[in-house]
């Protein structure tokens, strides 16, 4: 069992990196309803394995590796398997290059960029990301076809991605 100091260190690092861990899990699990559980399970395992972490090494990479196992455990269950990627693909995605997930950097820029969306596109994005509605539900609420929602979401994301990248390239201020 890890010393209280080591446990506190690891938990503190987890909290500092929680948005990144959450972003990593969100990438691999399209079903939002399971993300809370996986992040919490990751935290518990990180705490239990606190002794394995060597101070000064890459905490984020270590936490991602634990989160990856938790994702794989979760997507094995019926209902999740159908929409999650195959384990082999998740391994390929996590294995090759350093993973760049920094939602903490993007969220600030997003606030500005979302404000620039057309009202209906913003409404579709809000329903998808605030209220976790899937496209059929968004279509029902907005009186659109599912196909129209898919197109609107795709266009809105393209706009937001370019807008956020421009904002981040410009730097603070």
């Amino acid at each position: 069992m890890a010393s209280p100091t080591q446990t506190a260190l690891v938990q503190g690092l987890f909290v500092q990196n929680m948005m990144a861990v959450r972003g990593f899990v969100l990438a691999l699990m399209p079903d939002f309803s399971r993300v809370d559980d996986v992040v919490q399970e990751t935290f518990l395992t990180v705490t239990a394995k606190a002794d394995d972490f060597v101070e000064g090494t890459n905490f984020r990479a270590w936490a991602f590796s634990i989160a990856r196992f938790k994702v794989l455990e979760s997507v094995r269950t019926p209902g999740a398997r159908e929409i999650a990627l195959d384990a082999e693909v998740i391994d390929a995605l996590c294995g090759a290059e350093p993973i760049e997930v920094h939602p903490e950097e993007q969220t600030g820029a997003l606030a500005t960029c979302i404000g620039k969306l057309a009202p209906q596109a913003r409404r579709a994005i809000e329903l998808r990301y605030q209220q976790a509605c899937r496209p059929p539900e968004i279509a029902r609420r907005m009186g659109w076809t599912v196909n129209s929602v898919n197109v609107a979401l795709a266009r809105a994301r393209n706009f937001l991605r370019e807008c956020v990248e421009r904002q981040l390239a410009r730097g603070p201020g």
Partner: protein
Amino acid sequence: MDTEHLDFLLNRYFDGELTPTEKRELELILLEEPKARREFWRAAALHGALRISGEQAWGARAAKEIAERPAVAAARSRRWFLTEFPRLGWAALAAGLAAAVIVTVSSWKEPRAIKTGGQAVVSSRSGAPNSVADPFLAIVVDQSAGARWTGSPSLRGIGHALGRDRVRLEAGEATLMLDNGVELQLRGPVELELLSVDHGVLHRGQLSARVPDNAIGFRIDAPGVNVVDLGTEFSLAVDDGGEPKVHVFKGKVRAAMPTLPSSRTELGSGDTARFDVALGIVSRDTGDLSVFPILEDDSMLPRATGDVRYLRRAPKSVRAGTYEHDSIMVFQEKADVVLPEAVTVIRGASNQQRGPEPSVPDLAVLPAGTRVRSYLIHFDRVGASRDDVRARGRITFDRPVLGFVVHAKSLTDSDPWLGHPDTTYDSPGSRQILEMRFLRNRTGPVKSHTSGLFDEVHLGADGRSVEMVLFGGLAADQFRVLLAADGN
């Protein structure tokens, strides 16, 4: 690599919309193409940031509400620095910083729900209606005599339907029945926001929830805490300081502070936990259980399924247009009445839709002097267009059904002695009967609905269930169900 097609597949993946073929196609591309994997993470970064921003915007109001209680916030800040910082250190500080980020996200604004007629119309933050219609999620099935609702839309009490509304019950108690069978007992003052049938937010006050098996996973959020049902009856109370307490009457729940994963805790029957959101502390509690509303024993009530909702008290009115929604309402009118004159009823099943001639159900006459218990069935769909709205379901009583009063004259004639004394009924001239094929009105045989279909009412094989398929058209549908009174 076809980047446009990859973009299409990635968008469908992040929305959970991939078909099995598309999923396999995306998987092959990701396995084979390093550039596709880089593109995946580029898209994933935005998707994750959008969801995190969305969650923060959603939680921002709760955080704002706590922050707006200056006395409590200040007291907590002092207490926190004096007693908890040395113990929690950077973990707590980082959690606090994460919470602070929540308040800074300002571009996401919540839509405002407006009721027009019976439908909820959501307007964008600009205030311009955008014709987004929301379904109803729940009906008020009971409330105490002193219940007082405020806010907009103001509730009219028993029989009123709620969409994605934020409702305030200032005094008294009320029971909501959600469309998935979840029962919520509210005790005023309480402020509840329904987001869906699976998810609500308790902004203040107390509620208890009874969650049937089919709705396991039902979630209630309170400021800084979320409670997920795992098959249970539980209660959640938020005191004036914004501090949530959870109690489990039966079964199990999982509760957690979203900003603090280590706070996740499972509570079983009889457990109570208090969540100090400001300090990030969960403590087991054996305090005063009287703060949690008691769920009424529903084992003796008629069982309603499908679109049928049983009201535990009579509504103030069943005049057409009073309560327009998508559910069939049933309520007890009189418990024990001696019929002053004979009443013609129908029984059994009948085929209304097919065949050259209408199938006529069994007719029976209940003689004067029969002691009966009466229930009214009422269906008044939203609006009055010619398009039919279908509602179907069943209600099962604890004793045999003697028959249904469906003829217009029998229905209006029996209102004075079978109707509830506190309920206003339509006058005889405007009373609408069911569109059943064998019935006649003043001008001849009853015509079908616009869809060409007729209403159906059947007595189930057990003799205690009433099965119905009703088509809401231009006016409300009503009929009366008579049971033998107690002791008969």
